[in-house]
């Protein structure tokens, strides 16, 4: 799965079990775009969705989710999950704006990293199921932030650098997209080119075998959680830049979509199998789905139903592939 495509025939086979989620998710993106465009053509007479400007704007908003999902994927590949994302995002944003100045970005990243390391240490050394430990860490972070801010949005503002990274543009392309791209390159590099990447897959498949093979399993778990936390921190810092300040509950909307994006992209929820390309496509799918629904002015109720149905339907499609393999 992580081996490089040395086989020439691999290229000709698009429809492999590994590619299947990516192909299906891409197909869904096309369908979503088609439905959305049909709708805008019918109601407004324009193909808003297909205009490059709109697309870039959506991807810019999506890059915050994309960065969170990239970190989440590392953790899910290990067979774990990070439920502390919501308040890691919020805490990083709040701390970054509170410190301000040149320290803002490093502080935001460090807060994320620190939370991630705590998660990793709890999971790797205390062996507490990640689902429950990160849930507890999320509650603690929320408590810390509520106590710190008094339960209100902090008055401090995002620094110009944070705002530039979130809303600035280079050659008409949002800077946030470059940040997302850099994060993506980093994750792909780790997964494909480094021993740590192999260890992540190995631990996700069979931790005892990886341990007995002399893999530094604890270290790898701490590393993955740390990186996931740092990505959440980065996302939070950018998000504060995007909305010029931090606020309570700003990370709440990122947990479930991030998990959904990773899983829609074909990463096995129990770990050990998955490709980053899938996660990328999963994020784009969710972002576009959201924007089409908001164009249609779908009420929250309908959005929830559609959101849930799409996840289930996509996974039902994937399942055919799994049965074939068994």
């Amino acid at each position, binding site marked *: 799965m992580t081996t490089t495509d040395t086989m020439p025939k691999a290229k000709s086979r698009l429809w492999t079990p590994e590619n299947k989620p990516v192909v299906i998710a891409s197909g869904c993106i096309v369908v979503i775009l088609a439905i959305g465009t049909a709708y805008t053509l019918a109601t407004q007479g324009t193909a808003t969705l297909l205009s490059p400007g709109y697309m870039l704007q959506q991807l810019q908003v999506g890059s915050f989710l994309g960065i969170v999902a990239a970190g989440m994927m590392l953790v899910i590949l290990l067979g774990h*999950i990070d439920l502390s994302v919501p308040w890691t995002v919020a805490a990083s944003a709040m701390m970054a704006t509170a410190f301000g100045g040149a320290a803002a970005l490093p502080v935001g990243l460090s807060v994320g990293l620190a939370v991630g390391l705590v998660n990793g240490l*709890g999971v790797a*050394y*205390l*062996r*507490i*199921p990640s*689902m*429950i*430990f990160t*849930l*507890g*860490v*999320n*509650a*603690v*972070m*929320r*408590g*810390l932030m*509520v*106590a710190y801010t*008094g*339960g209100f949005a902090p008055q401090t503002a995002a620094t110009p650098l944070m705002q530039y990274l979130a809303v600035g543009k280079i050659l008409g392309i949002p800077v946030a997209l470059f940040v997302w791209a850099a994060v993506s390159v980093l994750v792909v590099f780790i997964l494909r080119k480094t021993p740590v990447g192999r260890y992540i897959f190995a631990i996700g498949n069979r*931790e*005892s075998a990886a*341990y*007995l093979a002399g893999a530094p399993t604890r270290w790898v778990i701490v590393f993955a959680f740390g990186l996931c936390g740092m990505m959440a921190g980065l996302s939070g810092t950018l998000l504060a830049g995007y909305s010029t300040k931090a606020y309570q*509950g700003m990370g*709440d909307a990122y947990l*479930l979509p991030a*998990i*959904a994006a990773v*899983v829609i992209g074909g990463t096995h*929820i*129990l770990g050990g199998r998955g490709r980053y390309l899938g996660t990328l496509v999963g994020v784009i799918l969710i972002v576009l789905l959201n924007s089409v629904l908001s164009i249609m002015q779908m*009420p*929250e*109720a*309908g*959005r*929830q*139903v*559609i*959101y*849930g*149905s799409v*996840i*289930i339907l996509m*996974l*039902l499609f994937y*399942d055919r592939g*799994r*049965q074939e393999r068994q």
Partner: protein
Amino acid sequence: MSHTRKSDLSIILRQSAPLITVIAIFLLFYIFYNSNHPRGFSTAVYIQNANEVFALVMVAMAQTVPVLMGGLDLSVGAVMTLVNTLASHLLNGSPLEIVFGFIVCLLTGALCGFVNGCVVVYGRIQPIIATLATGAIFMGLALFLRPTPGGDVDGDLAWVMTNDLYEIAATYGFFDNGEAAWFQPVAWLPVPALLLVVVALFVWMPFSRSVTGRTVYAIGSGESAAYMSGLPIDRAKIAAFTLGGFFAGVGGIYLTLQTSSGNADIPQAGAYTLNSIAAVVIGGTSLLGGVGTAIGSIFGALVLRTISFNFRIFDIDPLLQPLFEGVVLLGAVSIGALSVLRIKNTLELFR
């Protein structure tokens, strides 16, 4: 013979150590709370507390069943909310209409669980991700039913269900309006507490001792082994989720009676789901499945709630309360994990 009896007892005690521990912790916290409460150990306090815990206890029981199977149900809060909004429409009118409303609400809860079970079994989707998705759908339906909070609930019913037995008798004119002498020793009992006992004794206990319930434990302990043993895996999985939905539905109905309204509150649903997991873990059920009981989860939920009661009584800055709750949750799971330090064979960590 006496020898085996004795060792039987020691085995049973050892196996129920987590349950005994959580009960002891609850009693400790609760007695402490009452000793420091100005009106401690009074019926009024019991009733108030019972009302505050009931919905969470039900949701915790709902969570227990899938967890025993080695799964997790992230939709319990959403099912509770959906039934809550539904009940806020149905629990009024003539007695017959109210009874009909109850039945529809209970069936709805069970149906939600049934849907979860079918998606997991026939769709072969991991429970976590399946219920994450169905939870969103249930939440959406709840929002359709109650776009804004509100509702119309029969006042008498809401009143008696959230009070002591005396109020039932007094309101509906049983037992000389509740003044009958024989009735007095039990008249102070809070209705939700009794309801809880009824659900535990007449729903959970039979289930846990049925073949289906046994199969749920077997699946959590080793699904392939359970399959090889010829157990009805699919049926048990669907039954487990259905039962979970039923429990969550009971919680939702109660929430309606308690608040006299329905509210499709997404953060609240999320909080209930998360607290249900915490309650299950504190109650001694293994998240890996196979070990634990819903009775433990009841006390797990009670422990969680009792901690916040203590906060109230000591007048701790409300802003600190979320922090303390988080620390307690983290502390509880970490203490449970300390046994890791006693493991001398590292390989055992991976099982």
